[in-house]
């Protein structure tokens, strides 16, 4: 058990170290959500009027937290491909540490980064008064953080699954674009999915795990959600566990070729 924890810690540490060292990634992951908020958010805020008496900006601010987690988490897969192309994965695979330790280390490493990024977005959103601090409870923040962690675990897992099956950066990026767009747009991050949304769109949205994540965060922070927060939490939890298990199975199949 202590060996497993050590393995997780070692891999986690390297993920963090690499992120801190990569200035471009650091700047990119902080800048991206603000460009969305400042341009798309402010622009559409002026054009739309929400039905339920909240501003569009405060609605989509939470969607942008979800987006931050989605992008940062899936990115973890690129690291695996990188490590594979530069051979470093072999150094890890030939070491006497458990495979699940490697998988969990990678997942927790990227999850730490994603959640910190999402929290930075939350802090800015609160500072600018886009969401009023008064309306937020302590329990709400804790629940939101739990959602962020589970969502991140889900998508890091997804990134790892793709990375273990694709062995070049180009292929990975094509797949990512193919996945990221629908995951993001169907999640209710940018527009509400309500009963007035065309039915087919409602149905596909509900296959998107990010939908429940964002709905849950919204419910925890602003108390406006499609489903009860507990239900969202259950769905997000199950999806996260399933994806971690699949990622673990896939990772065991990697051989040192």
């Amino acid at each position, binding site marked *: 058990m202590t060996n497993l924890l050590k393995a997780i810690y070692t891999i986690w540490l390297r993920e963090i170290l690499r992120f801190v060292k990569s200035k471009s990634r650091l700047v990119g992951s902080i800048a991206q959500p603000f460009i969305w908020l400042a341009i798309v958010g402010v622009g559409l805020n002026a054009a739309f009027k929400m039905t339920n008496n909240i501003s569009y900006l405060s609605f989509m601010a939470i969607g942008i937290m979800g987006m931050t987690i989605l992008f940062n988490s899936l990115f973890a897969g690129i690291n695996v491909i990188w490590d594979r192309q530069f051979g*470093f994965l072999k150094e890890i695979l030939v070491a006497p540490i458990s495979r699940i330790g490697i998988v969990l280390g990678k997942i927790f490493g990227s999850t730490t980064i994603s959640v910190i990024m999402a929290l930075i977005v939350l802090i800015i959103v609160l500072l600018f008064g886009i969401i009023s601090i008064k309306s937020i409870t302590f329990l709400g923040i804790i629940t939101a953080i739990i959602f962020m962690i589970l969502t991140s675990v889900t998508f890091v897992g997804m990134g790892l699954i793709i990375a273990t099956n694709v062995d070049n950066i180009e292929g990975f990026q094509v797949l990512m674009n193919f996945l990221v767009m629908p995951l993001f747009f169907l999640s209710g991050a940018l527009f509400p999915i309500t009963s007035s949304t065309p039915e087919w769109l409602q149905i596909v949205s509900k296959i998107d795990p990010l939908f429940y994540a964002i709905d849950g965060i919204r419910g925890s922070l602003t108390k406006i959600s499609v489903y009860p927060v507990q239900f969202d939490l259950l769905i997000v939890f199950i999806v996260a566990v399933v994806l971690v298990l699949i990622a673990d199975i896939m990772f065991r199949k990697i051989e*040192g070729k």
Partner: protein
Amino acid sequence: MVNKANPKNKIYAIEVNNLIKNFGNLTAVNNISFSVNEGEIYGLLGPNGAGKTTTILILTTMLSLTSGNVRIFDKDIINKNIIRQMIGIVFQDPTLDEDLTAFENLDFHARLYNIKVNKKQIINNVLKLVELEDKADKQVKSFSGGMKRRLEIARSFMHEPKILFLDEPTIGLDPQTRRKIWDYIKKLNEKQKITIILTTHYLEEADELCNRVSIIDHGKIIKTGTPKELKSSFGGDIILINIEKKQEFKKILLNSAFIKSIKQTKTGLEIIVNKDGTKLIPKIVELAAKSKININSIALKQHTLEDVFISLTGKNIRDSTPDASEKMKLKFGGRR
């Protein structure tokens, strides 16, 4: 260095029996068996795609085997974590994190192998051995190919493995760096008593380093022995003498014990001897002087492993075409 006592019930550092590895319907390793003694430097010599790397990857738990049995210090390689703790490896292609510094790379390795006591000192010691101590805090990105290779060798024995696997340790390096790496390998073997198994397609490397060599081609071992045995099994050294009185001198020489055969050529004699030719030249000169026969010139031709290789495989080691495992590599592009 090689323990020759007690050959029965002996525990080998590596024992491979009837190892087979198929990739689909390609056979990369075709029923090979060999054993490596503790403390030995053992070479797998063969052209690209002969199955050397595949064998190494199986022995280091990185690839599953199709059939056969592999034991490392009497432990079956199924016990992956036990084996992994016992071995160190330098892969054919670099496996460093180029964004990290040399020290950070070694520190990561120390964590992976659970080295805690004197970690800093161990890192400094291994860096010193490969003469990189002043580069500890430089990013690996800025290193030359030779420096990276040296760093990887330093890393591979940090956790005091019992066996070190070196897959083409000097491929693509300049001659000076190659010499240096040979020195490190010898030092590790002699001072730290590490058993070393290396693959190479440089014959001079096998000749210089290895106690024993297996020549491997198309996934099969075609011959095993010490470099000396392999060379002499091919025939002794050849001494070429340029001389006028061929017949006369031939008669004199035939009475000497060291002669295997003598052939008359246009300009003189071609003598195949059964001993080290360098030591026989003075004797031959002496014999000629005694009989007042004048030698115009004398030359020694020693066999190299290259000759052995050509005679065994019918081809030069460098112009062999890739086969099974090489094609797999190209197909999947898994390796740079």
